[in-house]
């Protein structure tokens, strides 16, 4: 089993990776901190699941080496679940990649991260509506403080177990 963390640069993929696996990784506040993928694992239903932190990409059409690494991770090997980490403060730009990822018809979770910053900036996101528009389950989170990670983990377990996911938060 293989989970891939995908998303735009600097949205917090490495923080989510660190929260899910406990593996220490270099996390910074600028795009392009992760240029090589990192692999870790989680134990789910007594099985070891590989989880991969991909470098950030704006599009599945790569324009540099780091994006190439990410696109190859997605296209070359079979993936059981994509966790699309999305920056809630830059919804429109992030959704571009989400729509591209959705075409791949792989099981997917949208992790709407930095929801606290979005709220502080006066950005209000109607999560049930977004979920309906995309047809993808959404977990809001504040990865740096750990908020929402438990729910994310539960949803990962459900999806990998093959449960049918209800279309609501």
């Amino acid at each position: 089993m293989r989970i891939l963390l995908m998303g735009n640069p600097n949205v917090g993929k490495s923080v989510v990776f660190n929260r899910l696996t406990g593996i220490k990784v270099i996390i910074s506040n600028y795009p392009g901190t992760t240029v090589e993928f990192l692999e870790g694992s989680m134990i789910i239903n007594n099985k070891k699941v590989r989880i991969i932190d991909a470098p950030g990409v704006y599009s599945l059409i790569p324009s540099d080496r780091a994006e190439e690494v990410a696109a190859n991770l997605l296209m070359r090997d079979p993936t059981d679940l994509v966790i699309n980490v999305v920056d809630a403060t830059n919804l429109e730009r992030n959704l571009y990649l989400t729509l591209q990822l959705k075409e791949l018809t792989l099981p997917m979770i949208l992790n709407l991260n930095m929801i606290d910053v979005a709220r502080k900036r006066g950005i209000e996101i109607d999560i049930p509506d977004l979920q309906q528009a995309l047809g993808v389950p959404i977990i809001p989170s504040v990865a740096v403080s750990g908020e929402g990670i438990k729910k994310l983990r539960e949803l990962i377990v459900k999806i990998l177990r093959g449960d049918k996911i209800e279309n609501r938060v």
Partner: protein
Amino acid sequence: MKIEFEPKIERAIKYLQEKISLPRWQIILALEGSKEFKKKISQKILKEAVQEVEKDHGEPIELIMLKERFGQAGAIASRVQKVHHRHPTFLEKLEDATVKPLTGLPIAAGILWGIFKFFITVAGFITDRLMVPFFEGPYDNFIRGSVEKIFPHGFIHDMLIGAPGTGYLESFGLLTTGIFVPIGIVLPAVLVFYIILTLLEDIGYLPRLAVLVDTVFHRIGLHGYSIVPVILSFGCNVPGVMATRILTTDKQRFMMLTLLGISIPCMAQTAVVLNIIGPFGLPWVGLIYLILMGIFISMGSLLNKILKGETPEIAIEIPPYRLPRLSNLLMKTRLRMEQFLLGAIPWVFVGIFIVNVLYALHVTDFLSKILGPIMGRWLGLPQEAIYSLVIGFLRKDVATGLLAPLLNAGIMDLYQVITVVAMLAIYFPCAATFAVFLKELGVKDTLKSTALMLAVALGVGGLLHFIFSLIS
């Protein structure tokens, strides 16, 4: 909800689906410009499929797809998102102030000056007030006592703790210099540097610095973002080289790697340089950095002119300022220190081991016969400096450390030491960085880059000797 493209694009997709057996997502990616999937469709069929759409929009299909997608993303975003107006916070005002040249440049100068002062003071304090007393006191008593009990004198004695009567920087014993250089001198500098770097990274200052230096970097064919690999390289060239992956063309990456290799000394070298040359006054250390900066700029513009290839614009995102988190600061610093200790100490040991073997075998006599004319006439260096230049292929801190006894004994003067220090920074990356060069550039380009470094080192070394001989 199924997300569809406009009818004519959907028709093109259907057309392709009928002609070739590819899943919808691969066809869409091909239309969006993916080279990998484009290869799977014959040019003729692809052209037939997109003819009508392209004519209709008057644009190539990649651009049409891009606009369609952004249209879809925008429609969803504006449907689910409400943005309330509110006044800019202090951090947001600061964000503007630090990127506008008028306020940003003085702020940047102030920040860099503050960092420099803080770095020199704190790293110097740890080394001089904590490490030196520890190594010369309790550590020395223990190690010297234990070693001399078992090996009173001879090759192994010298290999472990150096010849009798020499200080910790000069002895070149595995347990004296081999531990003192990485732990006593380099570690404090690396620690302080990484704490500062982490703060800058986590706050989000680096991309803003990139905006400020963009104009200067563009003159030498590089993007302002190249400041990020440069700053990382001041710590260690290995992560610096990795960070160049965000540059888009081979030309930019070759240039950037070569410039990093040539003119950015890592913290290991800086720390030892500060220890050896610092006592003569910080302006001397500054002179070395000025020389290297001059080389960075002149080599950059030269490479930009002679290398073929493009240097396209890249858009970078400027993240908001965030308050750094202590937990992340601790995790990152620990991680980087671990990487430093595991990556550096073995190489320092190998370096010092080789130095001892070279001394024992009297290799200088042999090397000075071959390199004599270059060393003496062209560079104006005594033959003893050969050791340093040989070890520099492996580790810069050990190589620079080898200059200390030569300077103390009066075999080399300050000008000569500065010449060698500059050459050490230029002529070759250390072994670890060389390995990353091979991985990132391939054998051919790495050799090209290395040849360039050697040539520049010899040129600059000769030039410095010439200038110094005029003024001394």
